Protein backbone atom coordinates (compact mmCIF):
# COMPACT_ATOMS: atom_id res chain seq x y z
CA UNK A 1 0.00 0.00 0.00
CA UNK A 2 1.33 3.40 -0.96
CA UNK A 3 -0.23 6.75 -0.19
CA UNK A 4 0.89 9.54 -2.48
CA UNK A 5 0.03 13.17 -2.07
CA UNK A 6 0.76 14.98 -5.31
CA UNK A 7 0.86 18.77 -5.57
CA UNK A 8 -1.94 18.98 -3.02
CA UNK A 9 -3.57 22.35 -2.39
CA UNK A 10 -5.57 22.39 0.85
CA UNK A 11 -7.60 24.93 2.78
CA UNK A 12 -10.98 26.02 4.05
CA UNK A 13 -13.47 27.54 1.63
CA UNK A 14 -11.63 30.17 -0.41
CA UNK A 15 -8.63 30.27 1.87
CA UNK A 16 -5.63 28.22 0.84
CA UNK A 17 -3.43 27.07 3.71
CA UNK A 18 -1.18 24.47 2.11
CA UNK A 19 0.10 24.81 -1.45
CA UNK A 20 1.67 22.29 -3.78
CA UNK A 21 2.79 19.75 -1.24
CA UNK A 22 3.98 16.36 -2.44
CA UNK A 23 4.89 13.47 -0.15
CA UNK A 24 4.37 9.76 -0.06
CA UNK A 25 4.30 7.04 2.56
CA UNK A 26 4.29 3.26 2.18
CA UNK A 27 3.36 0.41 4.48
CA UNK A 28 6.06 0.01 7.08
CA UNK A 29 7.20 3.59 6.73
CA UNK A 30 6.76 6.56 9.03
CA UNK A 31 6.29 10.15 8.01
CA UNK A 32 6.56 12.86 10.61
CA UNK A 33 5.08 16.29 9.92
CA UNK A 34 6.84 19.09 11.75
CA UNK A 35 6.18 22.79 11.65
CA UNK A 36 4.95 25.76 13.64
CA UNK A 37 1.30 26.27 14.57
CA UNK A 38 -0.94 27.53 11.79
CA UNK A 39 1.26 26.21 9.03
CA UNK A 40 -1.39 23.74 7.89
CA UNK A 41 -0.47 20.37 9.38
CA UNK A 42 -4.02 19.73 10.54
CA UNK A 43 -5.44 21.10 7.29
CA UNK A 44 -3.35 18.64 5.32
CA UNK A 45 -4.54 15.81 7.59
CA UNK A 46 -8.15 16.74 7.24
CA UNK A 47 -7.75 16.82 3.47
CA UNK A 48 -6.08 13.39 3.34
CA UNK A 49 -8.91 11.96 5.46
CA UNK A 50 -11.51 13.56 3.22
CA UNK A 51 -12.96 15.94 5.86
CA UNK A 52 -11.94 18.85 3.59
CA UNK A 53 -12.19 18.97 -0.18
CA UNK A 54 -8.94 18.98 -2.07
CA UNK A 55 -8.50 22.36 -3.76
CA UNK A 56 -5.96 21.05 -6.24
CA UNK A 57 -3.62 18.16 -6.90
CA UNK A 58 -4.45 14.58 -6.05
CA UNK A 59 -4.31 11.97 -3.30
CA UNK A 60 -3.51 8.54 -4.61
CA UNK A 61 -3.78 5.22 -2.77
CA UNK A 62 -2.18 2.28 -4.54
CA UNK A 63 -2.47 4.06 -7.86
CA UNK A 64 -6.16 4.95 -7.37
CA UNK A 65 -7.39 8.48 -6.91
CA UNK A 66 -9.34 8.54 -3.63
CA UNK A 67 -11.62 11.50 -4.38
CA UNK A 68 -14.32 9.15 -5.65
CA UNK A 69 -13.95 6.63 -2.84
CA UNK A 70 -16.76 6.13 -0.35
CA UNK A 71 -16.16 6.79 3.34
CA UNK A 72 -16.41 3.09 3.96
CA UNK A 73 -13.73 2.17 1.44
CA UNK A 74 -11.43 4.95 2.62
CA UNK A 75 -11.85 3.81 6.23
CA UNK A 76 -10.58 0.32 5.44
CA UNK A 77 -7.36 1.85 4.06
CA UNK A 78 -6.74 4.82 6.34
CA UNK A 79 -7.13 4.77 10.11
CA UNK A 80 -7.40 8.04 12.00
CA UNK A 81 -6.12 8.57 15.52
CA UNK A 82 -7.45 11.91 16.73
CA UNK A 83 -6.12 13.77 19.74
CA UNK A 84 -7.58 12.14 22.82
CA UNK A 85 -10.72 13.90 24.02
CA UNK A 86 -13.54 13.05 26.35
CA UNK A 87 -16.84 12.05 24.73
CA UNK A 88 -20.11 13.00 26.43
CA UNK A 89 -21.10 9.45 27.35
CA UNK A 90 -19.26 6.97 29.61
CA UNK A 91 -18.66 4.19 27.09
CA UNK A 92 -16.80 1.04 28.02
CA UNK A 93 -13.30 0.90 26.51
CA UNK A 94 -14.09 -2.22 24.49
CA UNK A 95 -17.22 -0.54 23.09
CA UNK A 96 -15.04 2.37 21.95
CA UNK A 97 -12.40 0.13 20.38
CA UNK A 98 -14.93 -2.01 18.52
CA UNK A 99 -16.20 1.13 16.77
CA UNK A 100 -13.16 0.61 14.57
CA UNK A 101 -15.17 -2.19 12.92
CA UNK A 102 -17.76 0.25 11.56
CA UNK A 103 -16.39 0.20 8.01
CA UNK A 104 -16.46 -3.59 7.99
CA UNK A 105 -20.09 -3.86 9.11
CA UNK A 106 -23.31 -3.48 7.18
CA UNK A 107 -25.27 -0.32 7.97
CA UNK A 108 -27.90 -2.11 10.02
CA UNK A 109 -25.69 -4.51 11.95
CA UNK A 110 -23.75 -4.28 15.15
CA UNK A 111 -20.41 -5.91 16.03
CA UNK A 112 -20.30 -9.70 16.32
CA UNK A 113 -18.16 -11.81 18.66
CA UNK A 114 -15.52 -11.87 15.94
CA UNK A 115 -15.41 -8.07 15.84
CA UNK A 116 -15.11 -7.94 19.62
CA UNK A 117 -12.24 -10.41 19.42
CA UNK A 118 -10.44 -8.20 16.87
CA UNK A 119 -10.94 -5.23 19.18
CA UNK A 120 -9.60 -7.12 22.21
CA UNK A 121 -6.66 -8.25 20.14
CA UNK A 122 -5.84 -4.65 19.23
CA UNK A 123 -5.83 -3.71 22.92
CA UNK A 124 -3.56 -6.67 23.69
CA UNK A 125 -1.20 -5.70 20.87
CA UNK A 126 -0.71 -2.32 22.49
CA UNK A 127 -0.27 -3.89 25.91
CA UNK A 128 -3.41 -2.35 27.36
CA UNK A 129 -5.70 -5.39 27.34
CA UNK A 130 -6.47 -4.78 31.01
CA UNK A 131 -8.38 -1.63 30.07
CA UNK A 132 -11.14 -3.36 28.15
CA UNK A 133 -13.81 -3.29 30.84
CA UNK A 134 -12.89 0.14 32.19
CA UNK A 135 -14.89 3.26 31.44
CA UNK A 136 -13.31 5.32 28.65
CA UNK A 137 -14.08 8.66 30.29
CA UNK A 138 -12.42 7.61 33.55
CA UNK A 139 -9.02 6.39 32.35
CA UNK A 140 -5.91 8.59 32.02
CA UNK A 141 -4.99 10.66 28.97
CA UNK A 142 -2.19 8.28 27.99
CA UNK A 143 -4.55 5.31 28.26
CA UNK A 144 -7.16 7.11 26.19
CA UNK A 145 -4.57 7.72 23.46
CA UNK A 146 -3.72 4.01 23.48
CA UNK A 147 -7.43 3.16 23.22
CA UNK A 148 -7.80 5.43 20.21
CA UNK A 149 -4.79 3.80 18.55
CA UNK A 150 -6.36 0.41 19.30
CA UNK A 151 -9.59 1.61 17.71
CA UNK A 152 -7.72 2.65 14.56
CA UNK A 153 -5.94 -0.75 14.48
CA UNK A 154 -9.33 -2.48 14.76
CA UNK A 155 -10.15 -0.77 11.47
CA UNK A 156 -7.32 -2.91 10.03
CA UNK A 157 -6.06 -0.09 7.84
CA UNK A 158 -2.80 0.00 5.90
CA UNK A 159 -1.93 3.50 6.97
CA UNK A 160 -2.52 5.24 10.31
CA UNK A 161 -2.91 8.99 10.46
CA UNK A 162 -2.13 10.38 13.90
CA UNK A 163 -2.78 13.94 14.98
CA UNK A 164 -0.18 14.84 17.60
CA UNK A 165 -0.34 11.45 19.30
CA UNK A 166 1.83 12.63 22.18
CA UNK A 167 0.18 15.95 22.96
CA UNK A 168 -1.04 16.43 26.51
CA UNK A 169 0.75 13.31 27.71
CA UNK A 170 3.31 13.14 30.48
CA UNK A 171 6.87 12.20 29.57
CA UNK A 172 6.53 8.48 30.32
CA UNK A 173 3.34 8.16 28.32
CA UNK A 174 4.85 10.08 25.41
CA UNK A 175 7.67 7.56 25.25
CA UNK A 176 5.28 4.63 25.61
CA UNK A 177 3.08 5.88 22.77
CA UNK A 178 6.11 6.48 20.51
CA UNK A 179 7.37 3.00 21.31
CA UNK A 180 4.05 1.49 20.21
CA UNK A 181 4.02 3.57 17.05
CA UNK A 182 7.51 2.35 16.20
CA UNK A 183 6.47 -1.25 16.87
CA UNK A 184 3.46 -0.88 14.56
CA UNK A 185 5.67 0.50 11.80
CA UNK A 186 7.97 -2.48 12.20
CA UNK A 187 4.94 -4.73 11.79
CA UNK A 188 4.31 -3.16 8.41
CA UNK A 189 1.82 -0.38 9.02
CA UNK A 190 2.41 3.00 7.43
CA UNK A 191 2.16 5.99 9.78
CA UNK A 192 1.75 9.68 9.19
CA UNK A 193 1.94 11.73 12.37
CA UNK A 194 2.27 15.35 13.36
CA UNK A 195 4.46 16.46 16.19
CA UNK A 196 5.77 19.57 17.86
CA UNK A 197 9.01 17.88 18.84
CA UNK A 198 11.84 17.49 16.28
CA UNK A 199 13.18 14.73 18.57
CA UNK A 200 10.22 12.56 17.65
CA UNK A 201 11.41 12.59 14.06
CA UNK A 202 14.78 11.24 15.21
CA UNK A 203 13.22 8.65 17.49
CA UNK A 204 10.99 7.30 14.75
CA UNK A 205 13.78 7.69 12.17
CA UNK A 206 11.76 7.88 9.01
CA UNK A 207 10.69 10.52 6.57
CA UNK A 208 10.10 14.08 7.67
CA UNK A 209 8.23 16.93 6.14
CA UNK A 210 9.19 20.25 7.65
CA UNK A 211 6.38 22.67 6.86
CA UNK A 212 7.33 26.32 6.89
CA UNK A 213 5.47 29.62 6.62
CA UNK A 214 4.58 30.93 3.15
CA UNK A 215 3.69 27.51 1.74
CA UNK A 216 7.27 26.22 1.73
CA UNK A 217 8.19 22.74 2.83
CA UNK A 218 11.26 20.52 3.02
CA UNK A 219 10.83 16.77 2.69
CA UNK A 220 13.32 13.96 3.11
CA UNK A 221 14.85 11.61 5.66
CA UNK A 222 15.05 12.88 9.23
CA UNK A 223 18.87 12.99 9.10
CA UNK A 224 18.82 15.33 6.14
CA UNK A 225 15.84 17.50 6.99
CA UNK A 226 16.05 18.03 10.72
CA UNK A 227 19.16 20.18 10.79
CA UNK A 228 20.09 23.18 12.90
CA UNK A 229 19.72 25.49 9.92
CA UNK A 230 16.34 24.14 8.79
CA UNK A 231 14.87 24.24 12.29
CA UNK A 232 16.07 27.79 12.76
CA UNK A 233 14.42 28.78 9.46
CA UNK A 234 11.21 27.04 10.38
CA UNK A 235 10.68 28.01 14.01
CA UNK A 236 12.89 31.13 14.20
CA UNK A 237 14.75 29.92 17.27
CA UNK A 238 18.33 28.85 17.84
CA UNK A 239 18.80 25.09 18.29
CA UNK A 240 21.66 22.65 18.50
CA UNK A 241 21.56 19.06 17.29
CA UNK A 242 23.67 16.76 19.45
CA UNK A 243 24.58 13.13 18.95
CA UNK A 244 25.25 10.62 21.66
CA UNK A 245 25.88 6.89 21.57
CA UNK A 246 22.91 4.67 22.33
CA UNK A 247 22.80 1.42 24.31
CA UNK A 248 23.72 -0.68 21.30
CA UNK A 249 26.36 1.64 20.02
CA UNK A 250 24.05 3.41 17.56
CA UNK A 251 23.93 7.19 17.37
CA UNK A 252 21.02 8.96 18.98
CA UNK A 253 20.39 12.46 17.76
CA UNK A 254 18.60 15.03 19.82
CA UNK A 255 17.57 18.59 19.43
CA UNK A 256 18.34 21.11 22.17
CA UNK A 257 17.17 24.71 22.17
CA UNK A 258 19.85 27.34 22.78
CA UNK A 259 18.51 30.14 24.89
CA UNK A 260 19.84 33.60 24.15
CA UNK A 261 22.56 34.77 26.57
CA UNK A 262 21.53 36.97 29.44
Amino acid at each position, binding site marked *: MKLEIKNAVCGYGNRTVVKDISVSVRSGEILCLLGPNGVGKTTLFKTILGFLKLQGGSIILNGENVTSWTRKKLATALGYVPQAHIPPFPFKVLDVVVMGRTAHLLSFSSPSRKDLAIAENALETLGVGYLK*NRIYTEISGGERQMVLIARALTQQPDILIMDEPTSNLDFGNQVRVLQQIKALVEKGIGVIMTSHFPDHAFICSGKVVLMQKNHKFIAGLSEEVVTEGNLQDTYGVDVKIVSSPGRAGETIKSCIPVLAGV
Partner: protein
Amino acid sequence: MEAVEDKPEPVKKQYASINKMDRNRVILFSMFILLIAAIFISFIIGRYRIPVPQLLEILKGKLLGMPQTWPAAVETVIFKVRIPRICADLMVGAALATSGATYQGLFKNPMVSPDILGASAGAGFGAAIAILLSFNLVGVQLSSFVFGLGAVILTYMVGSIIGRSSNAILILVLTGMVVSTMFSSFTSITKYLADTDNKLPAITFWLMGGLSSVSTTDIKVLLVPFCLGIIPLFLLRWRLNVLSFGEEEAQALGIDTKTTRKIIIVCATLLTASAVSVSGMIGWIGLVIPHIARLLVGPNYKELLPASFLAGGIFLIIVDNVARSAFTIEIPLGILTSLIGAPFFMYLLIKGRRSWI
Protein backbone atom coordinates in the same frame (compact mmCIF):
# COMPACT_ATOMS: atom_id res chain seq x y z
CA MET B 1 -22.96 0.07 36.65
CA GLU B 2 -20.44 -2.66 37.01
CA ALA B 3 -17.55 -2.39 39.37
CA VAL B 4 -14.34 -1.14 37.83
CA GLU B 5 -11.66 -3.74 38.29
CA ASP B 6 -7.96 -3.20 38.01
CA LYS B 7 -6.18 -5.85 35.99
CA PRO B 8 -8.33 -8.80 37.09
CA GLU B 9 -7.43 -12.42 36.37
CA PRO B 10 -8.01 -13.38 32.73
CA VAL B 11 -10.73 -15.90 33.61
CA LYS B 12 -12.50 -13.50 35.90
CA LYS B 13 -12.33 -10.83 33.19
CA GLN B 14 -14.17 -13.05 30.80
CA TYR B 15 -16.89 -13.68 33.34
CA ALA B 16 -17.17 -9.97 33.98
CA SER B 17 -17.92 -9.21 30.34
CA ILE B 18 -20.38 -12.08 30.02
CA ASN B 19 -22.14 -10.97 33.18
CA LYS B 20 -22.40 -7.46 31.84
CA MET B 21 -24.15 -8.66 28.68
CA ASP B 22 -26.44 -10.93 30.66
CA ARG B 23 -27.13 -8.20 33.15
CA ASN B 24 -28.39 -5.86 30.43
CA ARG B 25 -30.49 -8.62 28.96
CA VAL B 26 -32.05 -9.28 32.36
CA ILE B 27 -32.76 -5.58 32.83
CA LEU B 28 -34.41 -5.26 29.41
CA PHE B 29 -36.48 -8.38 30.07
CA SER B 30 -37.55 -7.09 33.49
CA MET B 31 -38.57 -3.80 31.93
CA PHE B 32 -40.64 -5.68 29.39
CA ILE B 33 -42.42 -7.58 32.18
CA LEU B 34 -42.96 -4.32 34.04
CA LEU B 35 -44.50 -2.84 30.90
CA ILE B 36 -46.92 -5.74 30.57
CA ALA B 37 -47.83 -5.39 34.25
CA ALA B 38 -48.37 -1.64 33.86
CA ILE B 39 -50.63 -2.24 30.87
CA PHE B 40 -52.63 -4.83 32.79
CA ILE B 41 -53.10 -2.57 35.81
CA SER B 42 -54.16 0.30 33.55
CA PHE B 43 -57.10 -1.76 32.33
CA ILE B 44 -58.40 -2.15 35.84
CA ILE B 45 -57.99 1.22 37.48
CA GLY B 46 -59.72 4.43 36.55
CA ARG B 47 -62.94 6.19 37.36
CA TYR B 48 -64.76 3.16 36.04
CA ARG B 49 -63.15 0.28 37.88
CA ILE B 50 -63.16 -3.05 36.12
CA PRO B 51 -62.70 -6.08 38.41
CA VAL B 52 -59.96 -8.47 37.35
CA PRO B 53 -62.19 -11.56 36.81
CA GLN B 54 -64.52 -9.55 34.59
CA LEU B 55 -61.60 -8.12 32.60
CA LEU B 56 -60.14 -11.59 32.07
CA GLU B 57 -63.53 -12.96 31.11
CA ILE B 58 -64.12 -10.24 28.53
CA LEU B 59 -60.62 -10.48 27.06
CA LYS B 60 -60.91 -14.27 26.85
CA GLY B 61 -64.40 -14.04 25.40
CA LYS B 62 -63.33 -11.54 22.74
CA LEU B 63 -60.23 -13.49 21.87
CA LEU B 64 -62.10 -16.78 21.43
CA GLY B 65 -65.13 -15.15 19.82
CA MET B 66 -67.53 -16.29 22.55
CA PRO B 67 -71.03 -14.83 22.80
CA GLN B 68 -71.36 -11.66 24.89
CA THR B 69 -72.29 -12.41 28.50
CA TRP B 70 -71.07 -9.15 29.98
CA PRO B 71 -72.50 -5.62 30.11
CA ALA B 72 -71.96 -3.64 26.90
CA ALA B 73 -70.84 -0.60 28.90
CA VAL B 74 -67.81 -2.47 30.26
CA GLU B 75 -66.87 -3.60 26.79
CA THR B 76 -67.06 -0.02 25.54
CA VAL B 77 -64.84 1.17 28.38
CA ILE B 78 -62.25 -1.49 27.62
CA PHE B 79 -62.17 -1.28 23.85
CA LYS B 80 -63.13 2.31 23.09
CA VAL B 81 -61.54 4.08 26.08
CA ARG B 82 -58.88 2.02 27.86
CA ILE B 83 -57.18 0.29 24.93
CA PRO B 84 -56.74 3.43 22.78
CA ARG B 85 -55.49 5.32 25.79
CA ILE B 86 -52.99 2.66 26.87
CA CYS B 87 -51.75 2.33 23.29
CA ALA B 88 -51.36 6.11 23.06
CA ASP B 89 -49.49 6.24 26.40
CA LEU B 90 -47.15 3.53 25.26
CA MET B 91 -46.48 4.98 21.82
CA VAL B 92 -46.16 8.61 22.93
CA GLY B 93 -43.89 7.74 25.86
CA ALA B 94 -41.74 5.41 23.77
CA ALA B 95 -41.59 7.89 20.87
CA LEU B 96 -40.52 10.84 23.01
CA ALA B 97 -37.94 8.84 24.98
CA THR B 98 -36.49 7.18 21.87
CA SER B 99 -36.23 10.43 19.96
CA GLY B 100 -34.67 12.11 23.01
CA ALA B 101 -32.02 9.39 23.33
CA THR B 102 -31.37 9.64 19.60
CA TYR B 103 -30.95 13.43 19.61
CA GLN B 104 -28.55 13.15 22.56
CA GLY B 105 -26.29 10.77 20.64
CA LEU B 106 -26.57 12.55 17.31
CA PHE B 107 -25.74 15.96 18.74
CA LYS B 108 -23.28 14.33 21.19
CA ASN B 109 -25.02 16.31 23.85
CA PRO B 110 -26.60 14.76 26.97
CA MET B 111 -28.53 17.97 27.66
CA VAL B 112 -30.78 17.95 24.60
CA SER B 113 -34.23 16.52 24.04
CA PRO B 114 -37.16 17.11 21.69
CA ASP B 115 -38.31 19.95 23.98
CA ILE B 116 -34.93 21.62 24.20
CA LEU B 117 -34.13 21.41 20.49
CA GLY B 118 -37.43 23.10 19.65
CA ALA B 119 -38.85 19.99 17.96
CA SER B 120 -41.80 19.88 20.37
CA ALA B 121 -42.56 23.60 20.10
CA GLY B 122 -42.27 23.46 16.31
CA ALA B 123 -44.50 20.41 16.10
CA GLY B 124 -46.90 22.09 18.55
CA PHE B 125 -47.18 25.14 16.34
CA GLY B 126 -47.66 22.96 13.27
CA ALA B 127 -50.47 21.08 14.98
CA ALA B 128 -52.09 24.28 16.33
CA ILE B 129 -52.17 25.90 12.92
CA ALA B 130 -53.56 22.69 11.43
CA ILE B 131 -56.34 22.66 14.04
CA LEU B 132 -57.02 26.34 13.27
CA LEU B 133 -57.31 25.54 9.57
CA SER B 134 -59.55 22.53 10.33
CA PHE B 135 -57.18 19.96 8.80
CA ASN B 136 -57.99 16.30 9.33
CA LEU B 137 -55.86 14.03 11.55
CA VAL B 138 -53.34 13.21 8.83
CA GLY B 139 -53.04 16.91 8.03
CA VAL B 140 -52.32 17.68 11.68
CA GLN B 141 -49.61 15.00 11.70
CA LEU B 142 -47.97 16.29 8.53
CA SER B 143 -48.10 19.92 9.56
CA SER B 144 -46.58 19.16 12.95
CA PHE B 145 -43.84 17.07 11.33
CA VAL B 146 -42.92 19.82 8.86
CA PHE B 147 -42.69 22.53 11.53
CA GLY B 148 -40.98 20.22 14.02
CA LEU B 149 -38.31 19.36 11.45
CA GLY B 150 -37.95 23.04 10.53
CA ALA B 151 -37.38 23.93 14.18
CA VAL B 152 -34.71 21.23 14.71
CA ILE B 153 -32.86 22.22 11.54
CA LEU B 154 -33.00 25.89 12.56
CA THR B 155 -31.66 25.10 16.04
CA TYR B 156 -28.92 22.89 14.68
CA MET B 157 -27.80 25.35 11.99
CA VAL B 158 -27.82 28.46 14.15
CA GLY B 159 -26.21 26.47 16.97
CA SER B 160 -23.37 25.23 14.80
CA ILE B 161 -22.75 28.70 13.33
CA ILE B 162 -22.36 30.20 16.81
CA GLY B 163 -20.96 27.22 18.63
CA ARG B 164 -17.66 26.45 16.96
CA SER B 165 -15.99 26.85 20.34
CA SER B 166 -15.81 24.36 23.16
CA ASN B 167 -19.15 25.56 24.50
CA ALA B 168 -21.06 23.82 21.72
CA ILE B 169 -23.18 21.86 24.22
CA LEU B 170 -24.48 24.91 26.03
CA ILE B 171 -24.91 26.93 22.84
CA LEU B 172 -27.08 24.24 21.27
CA VAL B 173 -29.25 24.22 24.39
CA LEU B 174 -29.57 28.02 24.38
CA THR B 175 -30.30 28.16 20.65
CA GLY B 176 -32.96 25.51 21.13
CA MET B 177 -34.56 27.60 23.87
CA VAL B 178 -34.69 30.62 21.56
CA VAL B 179 -36.19 28.59 18.72
CA SER B 180 -38.71 27.01 21.14
CA THR B 181 -39.75 30.44 22.39
CA MET B 182 -40.16 31.65 18.83
CA PHE B 183 -42.45 28.78 17.92
CA SER B 184 -44.38 29.14 21.18
CA SER B 185 -45.03 32.76 20.19
CA PHE B 186 -46.28 31.60 16.81
CA THR B 187 -48.60 29.23 18.66
CA SER B 188 -49.83 32.14 20.79
CA ILE B 189 -50.58 34.12 17.63
CA THR B 190 -52.49 31.12 16.32
CA LYS B 191 -54.51 31.03 19.54
CA TYR B 192 -55.12 34.77 19.32
CA LEU B 193 -56.52 34.35 15.81
CA ALA B 194 -58.58 31.30 16.73
CA ASP B 195 -62.35 31.40 17.06
CA THR B 196 -63.04 31.74 20.80
CA ASP B 197 -66.07 29.45 20.68
CA ASN B 198 -64.67 26.22 19.33
CA LYS B 199 -61.10 26.46 17.94
CA LEU B 200 -59.49 28.23 20.90
CA PRO B 201 -60.68 25.74 23.53
CA ALA B 202 -59.63 22.87 21.26
CA ILE B 203 -56.11 24.26 20.78
CA THR B 204 -55.71 25.25 24.43
CA PHE B 205 -56.90 21.93 25.75
CA TRP B 206 -54.70 20.05 23.33
CA LEU B 207 -51.65 22.19 24.21
CA MET B 208 -51.93 21.32 27.89
CA GLY B 209 -50.94 17.82 26.98
CA GLY B 210 -53.19 14.89 27.61
CA LEU B 211 -54.60 11.75 26.17
CA SER B 212 -58.07 11.81 27.70
CA SER B 213 -59.87 12.24 24.40
CA VAL B 214 -57.77 9.85 22.35
CA SER B 215 -59.75 7.56 20.02
CA THR B 216 -59.11 4.40 18.05
CA THR B 217 -58.77 6.52 14.90
CA ASP B 218 -56.01 8.58 16.56
CA ILE B 219 -54.12 5.39 17.28
CA LYS B 220 -54.42 4.19 13.70
CA VAL B 221 -53.16 7.54 12.38
CA LEU B 222 -50.33 7.59 14.92
CA LEU B 223 -49.18 4.08 14.09
CA VAL B 224 -47.80 4.90 10.61
CA PRO B 225 -45.36 7.72 11.49
CA PHE B 226 -44.49 5.88 14.71
CA CYS B 227 -43.30 2.82 12.77
CA LEU B 228 -41.66 4.92 10.04
CA GLY B 229 -39.66 6.72 12.70
CA ILE B 230 -38.83 3.95 15.10
CA ILE B 231 -37.80 1.13 12.74
CA PRO B 232 -34.90 2.92 10.99
CA LEU B 233 -33.66 4.22 14.35
CA PHE B 234 -33.61 0.72 15.80
CA LEU B 235 -31.79 -0.60 12.74
CA LEU B 236 -29.19 2.19 12.83
CA ARG B 237 -28.88 2.32 16.61
CA TRP B 238 -25.37 0.90 16.93
CA ARG B 239 -24.09 3.64 14.60
CA LEU B 240 -25.38 6.27 17.04
CA ASN B 241 -22.48 5.24 19.31
CA VAL B 242 -20.04 6.14 16.56
CA LEU B 243 -21.86 9.38 15.72
CA SER B 244 -21.68 10.46 19.36
CA PHE B 245 -17.89 10.76 18.92
CA GLY B 246 -18.41 13.61 16.48
CA GLU B 247 -18.62 14.23 12.77
CA GLU B 248 -14.95 13.78 11.81
CA GLU B 249 -14.30 10.65 13.82
CA ALA B 250 -17.47 9.03 12.52
CA GLN B 251 -16.39 9.86 8.96
CA ALA B 252 -12.90 8.50 9.53
CA LEU B 253 -14.47 5.30 10.89
CA GLY B 254 -16.37 4.86 7.65
CA ILE B 255 -19.81 6.41 8.15
CA ASP B 256 -21.33 8.61 5.49
CA THR B 257 -22.32 11.10 8.15
CA LYS B 258 -24.29 13.46 5.91
CA THR B 259 -26.80 10.83 4.80
CA THR B 260 -26.92 9.01 8.12
CA ARG B 261 -27.51 12.22 10.08
CA LYS B 262 -30.31 13.26 7.74
CA ILE B 263 -32.08 9.91 8.09
CA ILE B 264 -31.71 9.98 11.87
CA ILE B 265 -32.88 13.60 12.29
CA VAL B 266 -35.91 12.97 10.07
CA CYS B 267 -36.85 9.77 11.95
CA ALA B 268 -36.40 11.25 15.43
CA THR B 269 -38.37 14.36 14.51
CA LEU B 270 -41.10 12.26 12.90
CA LEU B 271 -41.43 10.40 16.20
CA THR B 272 -41.59 13.61 18.21
CA ALA B 273 -44.08 15.24 15.85
CA SER B 274 -46.37 12.22 15.73
CA ALA B 275 -46.39 12.09 19.52
CA VAL B 276 -47.00 15.83 19.92
CA SER B 277 -49.81 15.88 17.35
CA VAL B 278 -51.71 13.24 19.32
CA SER B 279 -50.90 14.18 22.89
CA GLY B 280 -50.06 17.87 22.83
CA MET B 281 -47.10 19.17 24.78
CA ILE B 282 -45.89 16.52 27.17
CA GLY B 283 -42.51 17.72 28.31
CA TRP B 284 -39.41 16.25 29.94
CA ILE B 285 -39.86 12.62 28.92
CA GLY B 286 -37.37 12.97 26.06
CA LEU B 287 -34.74 14.39 28.40
CA VAL B 288 -35.19 12.45 31.61
CA ILE B 289 -36.04 8.93 30.41
CA PRO B 290 -32.86 8.46 28.29
CA HIS B 291 -30.81 9.40 31.37
CA ILE B 292 -32.64 6.86 33.50
CA ALA B 293 -32.15 4.26 30.76
CA ARG B 294 -28.44 5.11 30.61
CA LEU B 295 -28.16 4.60 34.35
CA LEU B 296 -29.76 1.18 33.93
CA VAL B 297 -28.02 -0.30 30.88
CA GLY B 298 -25.10 2.04 30.10
CA PRO B 299 -24.50 4.32 27.13
CA ASN B 300 -24.29 1.72 24.34
CA TYR B 301 -27.18 2.45 21.99
CA LYS B 302 -27.56 -1.23 21.22
CA GLU B 303 -29.23 -1.58 24.62
CA LEU B 304 -29.91 2.09 25.37
CA LEU B 305 -32.48 2.59 22.63
CA PRO B 306 -34.65 -0.42 23.58
CA ALA B 307 -34.30 0.56 27.24
CA SER B 308 -35.41 4.13 26.49
CA PHE B 309 -38.33 2.82 24.44
CA LEU B 310 -39.53 0.55 27.26
CA ALA B 311 -38.87 3.06 30.05
CA GLY B 312 -40.70 5.80 28.13
CA GLY B 313 -43.72 3.56 27.64
CA ILE B 314 -43.79 2.37 31.26
CA PHE B 315 -43.34 5.91 32.59
CA LEU B 316 -46.15 7.46 30.59
CA ILE B 317 -48.55 4.59 31.28
CA ILE B 318 -47.96 4.93 35.03
CA VAL B 319 -48.10 8.73 35.04
CA ASP B 320 -51.27 8.71 32.96
CA ASN B 321 -52.84 6.28 35.44
CA VAL B 322 -52.10 8.78 38.17
CA ALA B 323 -53.41 11.62 36.00
CA ARG B 324 -56.76 9.95 35.46
CA SER B 325 -57.37 8.34 38.83
CA ALA B 326 -55.60 10.29 41.58
CA PHE B 327 -58.21 13.03 41.86
CA THR B 328 -61.82 13.37 40.93
CA ILE B 329 -60.92 15.63 38.03
CA GLU B 330 -58.24 14.60 35.57
CA ILE B 331 -54.86 16.32 35.86
CA PRO B 332 -53.34 17.33 32.49
CA LEU B 333 -50.56 14.89 31.72
CA GLY B 334 -48.05 17.57 30.68
CA ILE B 335 -48.26 19.15 34.13
CA LEU B 336 -47.49 15.85 35.85
CA THR B 337 -44.51 14.99 33.64
CA SER B 338 -43.05 18.47 34.29
CA LEU B 339 -43.59 18.07 38.02
CA ILE B 340 -41.55 14.87 37.94
CA GLY B 341 -39.12 15.80 35.16
CA ALA B 342 -37.98 19.23 36.28
CA PRO B 343 -36.72 18.22 39.75
CA PHE B 344 -35.07 15.14 38.26
CA PHE B 345 -33.27 17.33 35.77
CA MET B 346 -32.06 19.54 38.63
CA TYR B 347 -30.70 16.43 40.29
CA LEU B 348 -28.86 15.50 37.08
CA LEU B 349 -27.37 18.98 36.85
CA ILE B 350 -26.14 18.89 40.42
CA LYS B 351 -24.79 15.38 40.14
CA GLY B 352 -23.63 15.75 36.52
CA ARG B 353 -20.09 15.80 35.35
CA ARG B 354 -18.63 19.23 34.79
CA SER B 355 -17.72 18.37 31.22
CA TRP B 356 -21.38 18.46 30.27
CA ILE B 357 -21.28 22.25 30.33
